[in-house]
């Protein structure tokens, strides 16, 4: 691009040098052997290089500001005009001095003038191209390419030496190009995108450009000294077509802009509406608040119906919130009273609407404002508030305006709905995070390993249906040979169950250290829990004391599902049935009447299986329960295995029975095997 400019300048200098050399040669009657066409050709190359330069320089510039483009054209013209004027002044001041008739100076200056004019013409040509091709379609591009090609080709037409006055070919070509130029001059879409002020500036700039064109034409083709009647031969098709095209397009532009002036405010409003609409729809991404959305809505709606003032009243519970524009809080109250008393109301019904979503136009008496339009604002099918638009003149509403306001209201509603959804999503995310923390905390309450010595091995397993659960197991070594093991289940599931489960853990850890008999333990736990469990909640528990020296179990059952004991001697399992009552069901001293303490001796390879009802009551698709019998049989079948293997066998069998790993209740298993 730069190279083409430098090349143009070099070519131009060579042309000048050549002409001056030729002049010197002519004076001294010498023949340089330079053919006549060479300077002309070089000049043509100069034009071509300029076309190339501006083609890229102007069309590539990113700015889509038309006024800037016109200003640039004007500035280029101004420089060319100042230089041309300067040359004329120079001539005039020289008057009759020797320099006045110095052919070298004359040649150089006229060349400079001519080339500056051609710079202006070519740059304007490319600027006009940009304007014509704004929002182009295929057809326009096709015609423009044809036109541009012909114009560029016409650069070299002057090698033929034809003139407009004398040659039919010149005339023919000129007419063809001119017709194309006139056709293309109809493309003035850019005018529509100017605002009122820009239109005036554009008119001014283009008028000035038109004046330049006349002036430069005069410079080139009317001899400076002689009278106007003499017009030199119009010998350059390229420059001539440029003049013609530029003039046509300038005149067309000025006229079109002039005729567009009155409607430009309408177009500007439409543009503003579109922009506001976009703002409303993008407000969530740009992080604007709900209030800002309502402000945009109010502003846009007021513009639409030329309202003089307005406000939005949002009902938030008992209180109302106001978003005002050009009106005070006191005035609002006054107008609200007038609205209530006014009898002159017009309903604008929406199709299929309920009464609530109708817009009402109310005429006010004895007020600055003649009418008020009340528009309900609906978000997620409920009315959240009303928009009031005040007008100082009557009868200024039409269907189209109302439709636009509707669109604004709808878009604002969608934006606010999106806001709410986003907030909800964030809140849910936080809850999820909190639940995860609760899960970790609860996980820490449930021991991974249980207290035991060499005389028995024990393996626990638990799984909560949701993040947190209500199942519980724990153990404690009371003395060298005495161990406490507990399993429990809180009624219900989820968060409330998890809270009660952690209370149970606290109660167990406090009471167990007192080394109580199982029934005493349950009695005290019942008293403690009676203080903190809500009325419909209860906890079931099985409490075991294992004496490894006496090889004896002592146990009590607080309404928990009966535990399973496998006797290796008989190779049979059975449930430990005894009387019991869930904790928190009977909240007084009489609780102890409803529980039993039992004890039994154990032998080597006997197994104690503790579990929660999440296992025995697990259902498959047809509604069958896993059941006590199945569990018993499974234990008998796997009795030779280690506690961990027994646990795995039972859980796998449970999953197979339910045909899923996602059970509806929490489920827990503790397997204890005596050595």
């Amino acid at each position, binding site marked *: 691009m730069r190279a083409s400019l430098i090349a143009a300048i070099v070519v131009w200098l060579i042309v000048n040098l050549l002409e001056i050399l030729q002049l010197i040669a002519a004076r001294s009657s010498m023949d340089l052997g330079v053919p006549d066409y060479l300077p002309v050709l070089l000049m043509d190359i100069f034009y071509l290089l300029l076309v190339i330069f501006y083609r890229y320089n102007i069309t590539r510039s990113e700015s889509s500001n038309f006024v800037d483009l016109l200003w640039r054209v004007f500035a280029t013209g101004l420089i060319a005009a100042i230089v041309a004027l300067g040359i004329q002044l120079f001539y005039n001041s020289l008057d009759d001095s020797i320099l006045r008739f110095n052919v070298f100076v004359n040649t150089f200056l006229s060349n400079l003038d001519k080339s500056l004019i051609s710079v202006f013409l070519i740059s304007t040509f490319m600027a006009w191209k940009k304007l014509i091709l704004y929002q182009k379609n295929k057809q326009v591009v096709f015609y423009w390419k044809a036109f541009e090609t012909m114009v560029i080709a016409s650069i070299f037409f002057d090698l033929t030496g034809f003139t407009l006055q004398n040659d039919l070919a010149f005339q023919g070509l000129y007419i063809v190009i001119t017709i194309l130029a006139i056709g293309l001059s109809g493309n003035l879409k850019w005018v529509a995108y100017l605002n009122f002020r820009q239109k005036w500036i554009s008119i001014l700039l283009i008028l000035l450009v038109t004046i330049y064109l006349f002036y430069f034409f005069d410079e080139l083709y009317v001899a400076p000294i002689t009278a106007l009647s003499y017009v030199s031969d119009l010998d350059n098709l390229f420059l001539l077509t440029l003049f013609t095209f530029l003039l046509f397009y300038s005149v067309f532009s000025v006229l079109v802009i002039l005729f567009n002036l009155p409607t430009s405010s309408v177009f500007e409003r439409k543009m503003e509406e579109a922009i506001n609409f976009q703002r409303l729809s993008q407000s969530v991404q740009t992080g604007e608040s709900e209030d800002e959305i309502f402000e945009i809505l109010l502003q846009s709606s007021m513009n639409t119906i030329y309202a003089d003032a307005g406000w939005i009243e949002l009902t938030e519970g008992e209180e109302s919130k106001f978003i005002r524009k050009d009106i005070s809080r006191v005035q609002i109250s006054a107008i609200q009273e007038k609205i209530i008393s006014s009898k002159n109301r017009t309903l604008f019904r929406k199709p299929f609407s309920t009464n609530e979503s109708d817009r009402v136009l109310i005429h006010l008496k004895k007020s600055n404002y003649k009418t008020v339009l009340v528009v309900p604002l609906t978000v997620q099918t409920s009315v959240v508030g009303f928009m009031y638009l005040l007008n100082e003149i009557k009868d200024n509403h039409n269907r189209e305006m109302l439709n636009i306001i509707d669109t604004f209201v709808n878009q604002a509603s969608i934006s606010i709905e999106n806001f709410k959804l986003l907030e909800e999503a964030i809140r849910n995310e936080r809850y999820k995070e909190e639940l995860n923390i609760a899960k970790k905390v609860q996980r820490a309450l449930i021991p991974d390993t249980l207290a035991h010595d060499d005389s028995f091995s024990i393996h626990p397993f638990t799984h909560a249906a949701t993040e947190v659960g209500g199942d519980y197991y724990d153990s404690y070594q009371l003395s060298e040979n005495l161990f406490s093991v507990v399993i429990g*289940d809180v*009624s219900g599931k989820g968060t409330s169950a998890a809270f009660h489960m952690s209370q149970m853990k606290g109660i167990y850890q406090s009471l167990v250290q007192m080394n109580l008999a199982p029934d005493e333990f349950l009695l005290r736990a019942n008293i403690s829990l009676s203080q903190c469990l809500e009325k*419909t909640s*209860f906890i*079931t528990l099985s409490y075991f004391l294992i004496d490894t020296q006496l090889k004896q179990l002592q146990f009590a059952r607080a*309404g928990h599902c009966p535990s399973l004991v496998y006797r290796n001697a008989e190779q049979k399992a059975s449930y430990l049935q005894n009387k019991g009552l*869930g904790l928190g*069901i009977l909240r007084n001293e009489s609780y102890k009447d*409803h529980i039993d303490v039992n004890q039994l001796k154990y032998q080597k390879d006997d197994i104690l299986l503790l579990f929660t009802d999440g296992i025995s009551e697990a259902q498959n698709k047809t509604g069958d329960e896993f059941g006590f019998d199945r569990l018993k049989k499974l234990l008998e079948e796997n009795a030779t295995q280690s506690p961990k293997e027994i646990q795995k066998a039972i859980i796998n069998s449970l999953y197979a029975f339910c045909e899923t790993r996602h059970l509806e209740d929490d489920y827990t298993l503790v397997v204890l095997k005596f050595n």
Partner: protein
Amino acid sequence: MIEIHTQNENNYLLISVKGDADASSAIHLDKVIRQAFDGPQKSIFIDCTKLNYISSAGLGVFMSYIEDITQNQINFVIYGLSEKVLNVFSILGLDQLLTIKKTKEEAISTLDGL
């Protein structure tokens, strides 16, 4: 799903429960029993012949009336429990605190003692 039907007989109020008494339906069951307790009838029978399943939440409803029953001397009788449901009641120990009868006739016979 649960279907609860209340019927005023001569000398007792009959509440028939059908379906599953789980966490979601326990509230309805509680509401109906609450109304019965607030009413004048001193004998309340719960017909559980068609009660298919009861969860801990359902048990919690019955459990919460135990105090009311003794304090207000209500003749509160549950009858018609399936083996499965009865087992759930007795594991928890509620059979010790609530009057549970096999059939309607047995339930009605409790009226004689009053």
